[in-house]
C-alpha cells in the first residue's frame, strides 16, 4: 500500500480493454492481459478509473465486456467500430477529449491482428511516453509516476515517467480479480459515436491460419537443480546480444537489418 498523501486529488486513469478469446474454445472472454491492466488500475488508491473499448457490440462481445464490469465498474465506454476498422483514430480522439493522466492497456489483443502495436501507435500520435511490461505503479506524485517494470527472471526495474503516459502490462502484472455476475449484469455499456476509419492496409493483407512457429531448441547443460530451474524459468533470451547507445539511426537500422538477416527473418 502506498501512502495516500502522495496523491493530489484523484488520478484519472483509462484502461483500454478488448474482447479476448479463450485459447482452447475460442469463446469470448475478458482478455487476460487487459484484465490485469484493469486490476492494476483498481489497485491504485484515489484513482478514477474509466474503461474504454473500441469495437463492435454484439452478443459475443457483450458477455466479454461485461466481464470487465464485473470487476466492480458501473459503466464502460464503447466506441462503436465495425470489423476491419482502424480503431487508432477513434481511441486517440476519445483519449484526447477525456484527458486521462494514465492509460493502461494489455500488451496485445487475443484476437484480430494482435500485433501489440496499438499502444505504440497511440503513444506516437498523442506524443506521450510509453512503458511496457509493467508490474506495478508504485506512486504518483505531482504528475510523475514511479513505475516498476518487469524484466525476465523476476527482475524488476524502477522507472519514473512524467504523466500523461501509456503503460502496458503482460503476464507479470498481478492476476485479475474475479468478475462478479451482479455488477457485470448491472453495469452500463455506454455506446459513444466515434469516427470510423477503414484500415486500408488490413484490407490488402491476406490472412491465413497461423502455423506453429518452430521453437528454438534450448540445450540445457545443467550441473545442478538450480541451473535447471534457472533455465526452465528464464524467458527466451539471446545470450550474444549487443547494446547500441548513442549511434546514428542509420547505424542502428543497419545493425537490426544484419541481425534479421542472420536470424533468417529476412532473406
Amino acid at each position: 500500500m502506498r501512502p495516500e498523501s502522495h496523491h493530489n486529488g484523484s488520478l484519472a486513469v483509462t484502461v483500454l480493454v478488448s474482447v479476448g478469446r479463450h485459447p482452447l474454445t475460442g469463446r469470448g472472454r475478458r482478455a487476460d492481459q487487459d484484465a490485469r491492466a484493469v486490476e492494476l488500475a483498481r489497485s491504485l488508491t484515489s484513482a478514477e478509473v474509466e474503461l474504454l473499448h473500441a469495437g463492435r457490440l454484439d452478443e459475443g462481445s457483450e458477455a466479454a465486456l461485461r466481464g470487465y464490469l464485473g470487476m466492480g465498474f458501473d459503466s464502460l465506454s464503447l466506441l462503436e467500430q465495425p470489423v476491419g476498422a482502424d480503431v487508432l483514430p477513434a481511441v486517440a480522439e476519445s483519449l484526447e477529449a477525456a484527458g486521462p493522466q494514465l492509460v493502461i492497456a494489455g500488451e496485445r489483443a487475443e484476437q484480430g491482428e494482435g500485433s501489440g502495436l496499438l499502444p505504440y501507435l497511440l503513444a506516437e500520435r498523442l506524443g506521450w511516453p510509453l512503458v511496457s511490461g509493467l508490474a506495478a505503479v508504485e506512486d504518483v506524485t505531482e504528475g510523475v509516476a514511479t513505475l516498476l517494470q518487469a524484466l525476465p527472471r523476476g527482475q524488476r526495474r524502477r522507472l519514473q515517467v512524467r504523466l500523461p503516459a501509456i503503460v502496458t502490462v503482460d503476464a507479470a502484472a498481478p492476476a485479475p480479480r474475479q468478475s462478479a455476475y451482479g455488477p457485470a449484469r448491472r453495469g452500463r455499456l455506454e455506446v459513444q459515436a466515434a469516427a470510423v476509419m477503414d484500415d486500408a492496409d488490413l484490407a490488402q493483407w491476406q490472412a491465413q491460419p497461423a502455423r506453429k512457429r518452430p521453437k528454438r531448441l534450448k540445450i540445457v547443460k545443467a550441473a545442478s537443480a538450480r541451473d535447471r530451474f534457472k533455465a526452465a524459468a528464464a524467458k527466451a533470451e539471446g545470450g550474444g546480444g549487443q547494446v547500441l547507445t548513442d549511434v546514428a539511426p542509420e547505424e542502428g537500422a543497419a545493425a537490426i537489418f544484419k541481425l534479421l538477416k542472420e536470424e533468417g527473418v529476412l532473406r
Partner: protein
Amino acid sequence: MLDTLLPILIAAALALAVIGAGRRVRLWRQGRPARVPLLKGLAAMPRRYLVDLHHVVGRDKVMSNTHVATAGGFVAAAALMILVHGLGLAEGVLGWLLLAASATMFVGSCFVARRRRNPPSRLSKGPWMRLPKSLMAFSLSVFAVTLPAVGLLPEDFGGWVVALVLSAVLVWGLGEMFFGMTWGGPMKHAFAGALHLAFHRRAERFGEGNRSTGLKALDLDDPEAPLGVETPSDFTWNQLLGFDACVQCGRCEAMCPAFAAGQPLNPKKLIQDMVVGMAGGSDAAYAGSPYPGQPVGEHQGSAHGPIVAREGKALVDAETLWSCTTCRACVEECPMMIEHVDAIVDMRRFLTLEHGNTPNKGAEVLDNLIATDNPGGFDPGARMHWAADLELPLMADLQQVDVLLWLGDGAYDMRNQRTLRSLVKVLRAADVDFAVLGNEERDSGDVARRLGDEATFQSLAKRNIATLAKYRFQRIVTCDPHSFHVLGNEYGELGGHYEVRHHSTYIAELYEAGRLHFKPWKGGGVTYHDPCYLGRYNGEYEAPRNVLKALGIEVAEMERSGFRSRCCGGGGGAPITDIPGERRIPDMRMKDVGETGAELVAVGCPQCTAMLEGVVDATAEVRDIAELVANALTEAPEASAGAAQQSSNRPQAVEVA
C-alpha cells in the same frame, strides 16, 4: 390469597407472552416474503412434530423420552392450569389431571437436570443451564398450588408465608415458560420450533422416507431479484423462523466434518449468529463451542447490515461459509429440521455473484467452467480421449438407447478413468444398450452451484438439458453421485426431468435380473464409505451394500456409516476453496476406515476416491464399486449346470425354523 393472585399471575404471563410473540414475529417478518400455505401448515404441524420428527429426535432415546415427559407434561399442565387456576374450573377431574401433568413434567425435568450435570461439549451452556431448575420451579409450584384446589390440602395451608414463597417460585416458572418462550429465553425453541415445523421451507421433507435436498434456484431473469443473501433480512421469513427454532443441542456440531477438522465452522454457532443478526447485536452471549480458532465476542451484525464484510469483521467470516462441504450431516441430524446447507449456499451466492470473492482456486474453476464447460479448463474436445480404444457408442449416432451413461468430469481425471473403464466393461458384460454424449456432455454444474455461482450453474444446466432433449433414453446412469444429484434433483426446476440411477443401483438391478455373474471374492476385509451425495442426498444406502454382498464381500461397517457417514471432504467445492484447519477431513475418514481393520474401502464417488486416495500412509486401498465388480466378472454359467451354479453363487433365503 392464592385464589386471587393466581388468575392475575397467569393472565399477566399470558399477556406478556402474547406481546413477546408479536415482537418475535416482527423479527421474522424482516425476512423476504415466501409463499407458504399458512393454515395448511398449522394443521399439518402436530403430525409433523409427533410423527415425522420423531425418528430424528428418537435417535437419542433417553433425551427423546425426557422430552416427551417434559414437553408433554408442560403443554398439558399449561393448558390445564389456565382452566383450573385462571378460570377457576378446579372441580372434577381437571385438577387431578393437572396434578398428573405437572408431576410428569417434574420427572422429565429431573432427567433434564441429570443431563446438565456433566453436559457434553456440544450442548450450549449459559441460560440453558438454568432451564432444568426453571422447569422444576414451574412443575413443582403448579403441583403445589393445585393440591388445595383438589382438596388434598386445606385452602389456607401454611398461611401467607408459604403462599408467598410458592407464588415467587411460580413467578419464576411462569417467567421462564411463558415470558421466556417469546422474549428469547431457552423456551423460545418451543414457540419458534412449532411454527417452523408449520411453515417449513421444504414441506415436502415431511413424511416417511421423504427427502428434499435440491438447492432452490435463483431467479436470474428478474434484474431486481437479489443474488443470494447479503444481510439477515435477505433470508426468507421462514428461514429466519427456522434459525430461531434452534435448541442449541449441538448434534450438528458433533457431526460436522469441518468442525472436527478444526476449520472455522460450527453449524450451531452459524445458526445462532443468524439469530444474533436478525435481532441485532454481538455474539458475546453465545454459550456453546465457538468456531474453531475464533473467540466469541468479536463479531456483530444487524438485520439490515452485511453478514460478511468486504473488509474487516461483520457477523460471520467468509472462511466460515467456505469451510462447509455441503455434506448435509448437520441437516440430517437436526431435530428441528433446520436447513443449514441452504443458508450457507444462499450466503455463498452473494459472495460469489456480488462480491466476486470465491476464495483460492474458486475463481479459476468458475472461469474454467464458463470458458471450457469443465472445472479443470481442459479442452472440451478431449473429453473422450480416455475411451479412444473403447469405441463407445455415441448418442449422436444412435439417437435412442436404453441407458445414457453420464460420464461426469471424472472423464478428465486419470484415476476416475479407471472407474469409467470398469463401468463400461460391466455394462458390456450385461449386454446393456447404452451410449454416451461424448463431447456434447458438459459439467453438470454441481461445483459451480455449491460455490455460489448460480449463473454458471444455470447456464450449464440449460445447455445440458437442451442436449439431453435431443435424444431418447430410458434412464441416465452415472458413477458420479454429484451429477446424479444435480441431474435428478436440481434440473427439474429448470425443466429437465430424468430418471437417474447411480451405477451401484444399476449394477444391483442388473445382478438381480441375472445379467451379471461374479467370481467369489478372494480379497481381505472390506468396508464401505457412503458418499454424501448418494446417501444423505438421495437415500441410497442399500444398493452399494447389496452389490458388495453379491460379490461375496462382507462389509465391516464403520462406526459412522449410512446416514451418519462422515464426509470425505470433497463436496461443496471444499477442496477448491481449501480453508485451512488443524486436520484434514479425508485423513479422519481414512482413520475411520482403519479402525474397522479393512484392507480395502469401497467407494462410489470420484470425489471420495480422490480425497481418500490422497491420504498419506493409508491402511486401506480405495476401489470404486465398479472396479470391484469388473474384476469379479465371470462368464455366465453353462446352461446345463446353470441352475445349480446360479444357486451356489447367489445368496438365498434359508428357512431357519
